[in-house]
């Protein structure tokens, strides 16, 4: 506590965090964020994987030049993930709040229930946006290191990073479902393999 008797910055921060945790529990953010995160991250990884694979089989010899392409695509996916989930979550939360207000016969906007609904909308949108962008952005790292790794190795490393991200997503989903981590990881890597083969077939077909 500060000398003036008002709470200091640390106390205010702790109180703010406690309030957010309170909203987090009321609005049951955790479960919905757990759904959005792997779904959007999976989209991000597969999009970047498609770009890298298409570039490799399309004859691109400067993988570093893909960094800006993938980063732009990832950021666009991030914006899309944020806005898409923000708007849909806001619509659902507002509807649920209005239904609750009808039952309670009172307005709830200025209560913890209303604040928690607004917090949930933003928190879930942030998770969805971050998840959409992060997978592709991480794949930029080996491509940016082309001068160190060499052309072919930076492509291989990007595929390796994509596979690793898919494995980690599989582990995440396996932990959520309390199932077998290896099985859920293999399922996601197989999906990556399907995307890889489709890109390859496009090249073989001469598209």
């Amino acid at each position, binding site marked *: 506590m500060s000398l003036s008797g008002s709470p200091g910055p640390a106390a205010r921060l702790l109180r703010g965090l406690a309030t957010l945790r*309170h909203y987090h*529990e*009321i*609005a*049951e953010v955790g479960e919905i964020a757990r759904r959005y995160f792997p779904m959007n991250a999976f989209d991000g990884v597969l999009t970047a994987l498609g770009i890298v694979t298409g570039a490799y089989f399309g004859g691109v010899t400067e993988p570093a030049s893909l960094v800006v392409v993938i980063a732009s695509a990832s950021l666009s996916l991030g914006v899309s993930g944020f806005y898409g989930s923000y708007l849909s979550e806001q619509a659902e939360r507002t509807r649920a709040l209005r*239904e*609750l207000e009808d*039952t*309670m*016969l*009172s307005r*709830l906007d200025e*209560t*913890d*229930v*209303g604040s*928690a609904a607004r917090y949930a909308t933003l928190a879930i949108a942030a998770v969805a946006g971050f998840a959409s962008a992060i997978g592709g952005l991480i794949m930029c790292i080996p491509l940016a290191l082309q001068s160190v790794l060499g052309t072919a190795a930076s492509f291989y490393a990007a595929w390796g990073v994509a596979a690793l991200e898919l494995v980690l997503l599989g582990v995440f989903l396996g932990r959520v479902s309390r199932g077998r981590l290896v099985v859920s990881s293999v399922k996601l890597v197989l999906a990556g393999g399907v995307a890889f083969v489709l890109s390859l077939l496009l090249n073989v077909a001469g598209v």
Partner: protein
Amino acid sequence: MSEVRRLVLDVLKPHQPTMLVLADKLGDLEGVHGVDITLIEIDNKVENIKITLEGDDVDFQDVAEVVQDAGGSIHSIDKVSTGKRLIDEVETPQDAGASWLR
């Protein structure tokens, strides 16, 4: 002015925040020594609860603020006890005579 020592409220609230959270917040209020919340009725979206508070100075405005922040609305004040010490309702012959009606 004498202090409120016991307060019983009939409250309608959403399922979230839970009774645990509400009891915790009410228990933190100054002048409140004990909180009891009983579930009376539960519906699809809301629940009807009875809140009993005891202390040496229970402030109704503070209690109402906590309940309203939790999205609840106070339907009625069902019992208030004030004074230097806590006393219970006394049963009279009229109450006993009418007990067969209940």
